[in-house]
């Protein structure tokens, strides 16, 4: 609570500094609304500073002088807090007041202010008070109950897509009617608040962008990721976490001759002997050993369906190890490597597998796949483009209508059966969801509550180390793309 008050107080201080031009250069004029929200965001973002103020207040309060100072500081900040919101609207208030008085001249009026906009009650009240304060010095006196035929001013706080529009309809006691108005640019809408993280399946935000994201790969991490690669339709960017924010390290362009298909998909896979590989429809890029410099070529080579570290397998085949961090651990699992061909002008895998699953070298065209290693075989699940799920164990292809979405990913954990399948839901008007399942046999059993996302899931891939997955969503309200890491935690 103390922290929250300190934050608000800090915002108020920033407000004053900004309004006096001491610290923040803000555009003047009617764009004050945008400026206000920006400042508020900055105040919240710099979390450490309010803490510092809080601690500072605590220390000085140990002496009488300190107490007086603290009391004065609190008073000042509270005062600033009260006036902060009103000051944000100061310029349009002053503009409208001047235009009104230009019509009415000084004198008694009956004033009504109506909110026809999306402004909240707090802003509305601040503006209403601000308008009265702006009109009074110009010689306007307000009548509570009209005692005589007086000038009436009906102010409507309205809006259009670009601006807040404040309209004053003035009716003089002579019967003449006038309309004056001002506008004030609107700020962008703030993104919706995401739902809290459920208990077992946890999502961690990695990256957000107004531009499309196809995939994100975590390249380095300690307790949290500190180096990531972000794939968008035209480039790969490397970011490092420095100074409490992601700093761009390097960018490399993806060269491609053909137009990308709609619903473009792509995958980043961190490599052991070089930085990473990039898989896109009809294009594969490989970075150099030490840097991001990409060498892209048109290629219909298969994409790996699981991307763990490779070890040699029997008969010249390869195995992927999961989790990669436990390579030396007896609990790690070896999964036969499987690749699939991605249609270069579409959004799906053709269904041709290499080297195949047992006797199956083709399955119906599919969007995504997940694997569940068993003692003697691996059960592969393919989310086919017809909405069905094909469960292929090498000897049979069992088809099920599970009502899932089109993205599957498997994760190796220390929970439950050890391997779970993450499956997207079928979507709602508000967003998509992901839920974890286990397959004791061929029927899925939900083992987690669904994690909701406020947007459509556009990608879900198992990460290279195998115990987490990356989910990319597109927020339906803001259009923002967001990348999350999904991890399963044992227990509640």
């Amino acid at each position, binding site marked *: 609570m103390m922290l929250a008050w300190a934050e608000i107080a800090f915002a108020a201080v920033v407000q004053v500094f900004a309004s006096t031009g001491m610290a923040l250069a803000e555009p003047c004029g009617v764009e004050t609304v945008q400026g206000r929200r920006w400042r508020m965001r900055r105040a919240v973002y710099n979390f450490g500073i309010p803490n510092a103020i809080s601690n500072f207040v605590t220390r000085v309060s140990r002496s009488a002088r300190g107490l007086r100072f603290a009391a004065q500081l609190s008073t000042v900040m509270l005062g600033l807090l009260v006036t902060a919101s009103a000051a944000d609207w100061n310029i349009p208030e002053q503009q409208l007041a001047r235009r009104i008085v230009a019509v009415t001249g000084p004198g008694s009026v009956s004033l009504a202010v109506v909110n*026809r906009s999306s402004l909240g009650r707090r802003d509305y009240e601040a503006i209403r008070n601000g308008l009265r304060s702006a009109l009074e010095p110009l010689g306007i006196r307000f009548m509570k109950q009209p005692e005589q035929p007086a000038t009436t001013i009906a102010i*409507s706080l*309205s*809006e*259009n*897509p*670009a*601006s*807040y*529009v404040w*309209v004053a*309809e003035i009716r003089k006691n002579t019967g003449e009617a006038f*309309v*004056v*108005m*001002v*506008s004030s*640019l*609107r700020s*962008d*809408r703030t993104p919706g608040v995401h739902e809290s993280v459920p208990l077992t399946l946890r999502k961690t935000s990695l990256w957000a962008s107004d531009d499309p994201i196809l995939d994100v790969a975590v390249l380095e991490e300690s307790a949290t990721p500190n180096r990531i690669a972000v794939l968008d339709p035209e480039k790969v960017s490397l970011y490092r976490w420095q100074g409490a924010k992601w700093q761009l390290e390097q960018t490399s362009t993806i060269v491609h001759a053909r*137009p*990308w*298909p*709609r*619903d*473009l998909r792509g995958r980043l896979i961190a490599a052991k002997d070089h930085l990473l590989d990039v898989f896109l429809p009809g294009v594969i890029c490989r970075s150099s050993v030490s840097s991001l410099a990409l060498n892209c070529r048109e290629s219909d080579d298969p994409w790996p369906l699981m991307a763990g570290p490779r070890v040699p397998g029997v008969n010249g085949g390869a195995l992927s190890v999961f989790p990669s961090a436990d390579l030396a651990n007896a609990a790690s699992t070896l999964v036969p490597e499987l690749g699939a061909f991605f249609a270069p*002008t*579409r*959004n*799906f895998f053709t269904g041709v597998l290499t080297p195949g699953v047992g006797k199956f070298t083709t399955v119906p065209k599919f*969007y995504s796949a997940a694997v569940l290693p068993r003692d003697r075989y691996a059960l592969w699940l393919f989310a086919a*483009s*017809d*909405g069905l799920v094909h469960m292929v164990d090498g000897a049979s292809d069992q088809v099920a209508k599970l*009502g899932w*979405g*089109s*993205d599957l990913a498997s994760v190796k954990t220390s929970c439950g059966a050890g391997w779970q399948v993450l499956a997207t839901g*079928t*979507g*709602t*008007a508000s967003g998509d969801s992901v839920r974890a399942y286990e397959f004791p046999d061929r029927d899925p059993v939900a083992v987690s509550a669904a994690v909701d996302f406020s947007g*459509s899931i556009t990608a879900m891939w198992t990460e290279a180390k195998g115990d987490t997955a990356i989910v990319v969503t597109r927020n*339906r*309200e803001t*259009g923002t793309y967001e990348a999350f890491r999904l991890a399963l935690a044992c227990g509640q």
Partner: protein
Amino acid sequence: MRLFGWHWLAVSSLLAGSLSVYAETRPQYGGTLHVTMRAAPVSLDPADSSQPESFAQRSLTMLIFDTMLSTDEDGRTQPALATSWQASQGNRRWQFHLRSGVKFHDGSALTAEAAAASLRSANPSWNVSADGDVVVIEEDTPDPELPAELALPRNAIEKQSPDNKLSGTGPFHIVDWQPRKKLTLGAEEDCWRGRPFLDGVEIEMGKNSQDQLIELELGKADLVEVAPEQSHRVAAEGHLLTSSAPMELLALIFTRDVASPDDKLLRDALALSVERGSIRSVLLQGAGQAAASILPNWISGYGFVFPTDADLTRARQAREQVHTIPRWTIGYDADDPAARLLAERLALNARDAGLSLQPTTSTAVDVRLARIPLASADPWIALANVTAIAGLPGLKNTGRSVEDLYAAEQADLATQRVIPLFHLPASYAATPVLKNWILRPDGTWSVADAWLGSAKP
């Protein structure tokens, strides 16, 4: 550049708050979409201004053609065929850098010369030239709205072959075209935005609203138009109904200027006699918004200032100042079933005020009942378009503030050539199998990213 917020835009009975019908899985390729529409255009040429404006016509244009710039869901201008643009000489000279590698459906490359020729054809008054891969547009007066104008379907880039075949760069190419009847489109494999998911689109034209709904119910159509007065019933019947914000102006347009002080008084009386509230409740079944302004309130922010209530007393007072009452004729579209009822109701209102208004389907009339789809959500472009359609003098705006806009609109209304009546939404009903189709901010629909799925997930 203006910022627009469209958070309220789609007023959907079953899919509130969503512009596009959400997809339950990844998009699936294949299938032919069947669409019906009331309009029956004789030409697909986007620059052909001889045809009546309609949301349907604009929608078709954007399936076949692309514009230099586009408008996003927030109303901001975005790159399309042009990747960047800049203004100089006080917004009199504009340069648009063309996207490379784009081809027309006939296989020829999109060049700055081709784009310039197309824009000249659509806008004879513009001075358009090509300079390398740059299209240059020069005008005599500053035009800050030019980027928004280039996003209008009528400024889509087209190419005509010597045998008059149209070619665009859009997601679908023309397979078969039977003017006024049917249009068959095929997916453009090499579309620069990527091949559409649908294999094709078949559009049946000249279908009245009732027939369109029957075709939807019979499964013969996937996407149909819904007349405003039917939207309430269609939603109640459980159809997936999606409506735009009010983007169509229903208005009375006088065919000549005010001729005398008496004429002015009589037009005042007519405007005051219209009972918009009851007409909206009864004839429009609650659809749309009563309007006395050209621009809807959501575009201007000040539309509420113009009173919409009828004032029969004042109407009669105005009428009584005139000794000789002319017999006016009100023209309406014979193909629009709601228009006849509206015209008759307006005639009744006029009679209550002591005026004479005779409904007719003739084209030689004193006043006509017109549906005007607003050209853009940009208020200046929308107002200029209505001004042109109503035959009013061009806008004389010196500034770009909301007060300037208000003054310009007031000037239009002061001519008494236009009596705004209602602002109506564009409404559509779709089958559950049609996924991810988009209702754009301007009331047009797009199926470039749509796909056909299963009825139930």
